[in-house]
């Protein structure tokens, strides 16, 4: 129970680091959605681009996170602020599940439904917004859910480059060889991941087409 006493004692800092953590995850997920969903739609409509795009996102995923943070450090504007850098790196990691699920979701829409819609004279954007996206939304959101859960975990490493977040406690605890401090970072991070998983999952079910 030492852990909780420690957390209670440092509640302001726990709260502050949690908010920082949320900020890193929130912005990176938002950016990844803004980039990944249109990209996923694009490659679903133009299949010849699907291999290069998915391969690139895949390769990014294989770069060890600590190395990626390190690589980005010398970049001029980005390197000046650790949190910018962390958000960029987290965005890159979140891309793959979002692009892939958007692609899968759109491709999964029954071809006869799309053909009927096109034949009836829906414009390509009406087809996208009224037919394809509503039918693919739950698949896309399950990609977002994976991305968020990964990001919550990865964001703890961002503390290594001074970007803040709950990783601060973890690294500090490691340096001090103090389990309480490590857990003060790890427990809220785990809770955040569960909460995000549950929240997006709920949204996913709400928006599921019949």
């Amino acid at each position: 129970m030492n852990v909780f006493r420690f957390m209670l004692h440092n509640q302001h800092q726990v709260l502050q680091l949690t908010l920082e953590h949320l900020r890193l995850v929130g912005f990176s997920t938002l950016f990844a959605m803004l980039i990944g969903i249109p990209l996923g739609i694009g490659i679903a409509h133009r299949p010849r681009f699907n291999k290069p795009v998915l391969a690139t996102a895949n390769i990014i995923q294989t770069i060890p996170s600590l190395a990626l943070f390190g690589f980005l450090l010398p970049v001029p504007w980005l390197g000046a602020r650790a949190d910018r850098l962390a958000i960029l790196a987290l965005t890159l990691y979140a891309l793959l599940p979002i692009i892939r699920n958007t692609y899968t979701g759109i491709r999964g829409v029954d071809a006869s439904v799309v053909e009927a819609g096109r034949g009836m004279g829906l414009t390509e954007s009406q087809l996208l917004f009224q037919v394809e996206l509503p039918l693919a939304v739950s698949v896309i959101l399950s990609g977002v859910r994976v991305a968020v859960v990964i990001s919550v975990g990865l964001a703890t490493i961002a503390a290594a480059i001074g970007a803040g977040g709950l990783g601060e406690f973890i690294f500090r605890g490691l340096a001090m060889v103090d389990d309480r401090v490590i857990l003060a970072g790890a427990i809220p991070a785990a809770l955040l991941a569960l909460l995000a998983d549950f929240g997006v999952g709920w949204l996913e079910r709400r928006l599921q087409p019949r």
Partner: protein
Amino acid sequence: MQPEAANPVIEFREVSYRVAGTQVLSGFNLKVQSGETLVLLGRSGSGKTTSLKLVNRLLSPTSGEIRVKGVPNAEADLIRLRRSIGYVIQDVGLFPHFTIERNIGLVPKIEGWPANRIGARVQELLQMIGLAPELASRYPHQLSGGQRQRVGVARALAADPEILLMDEPFGALDPLTRDELQREFLLLQQRLHKTVVFVTHDLREALRLGSRIALMEAGQLVTVLAPPDFLRSTDPLASAYVRAFGEGLESAANRGTS
């Protein structure tokens, strides 16, 4: 039969379509007259569906042109063209996340009809295709196959297009439901006099529904005949169809007597 002088509603002029090295359609010429049901009959791969999709420009010809109401359809506004042509396909393609009402009313809605006019039109169409008004609030998966295809027809008719393209619309239905829908189609067509191009590989359906039958084989038009002439035709392919059709009945009848 329609007089030759009348302006055709749809006209194929020397149309060829080639895709990935395969000649799907070659030198295709055909005129579809106002108010007739022209059946494209042929086996799979003969180019029937391709011909149909060339009309509403889901496909574009490699050479030649298709005229719709006298205007080359390549010059028409694509979206306007498609909205003026009803399209019914075998897999129906109802929007699974829309109610029946929204499915039927979609084209009127995107055409900007006021809501009360759309509602009235949907009720009118439901009645026309013989579906109960309360089905309007159901979803496609709650309907039977026959009901779904009726909705497919109603959706195609929603904005009152002059032309109807039907691609094996009753092909996936059981024989009794198919018979029902064919009968309803004939009644509907007696009232509406749409210009219909109807694709099928079923001679029985072609004879029953068509004012004329265009027989296709390997991407070419073999002959165009009215149903009675089709049965008497000496064309080898046409008579092969008729023979195959008759043999099924005969052999069943013969087995019955032994």
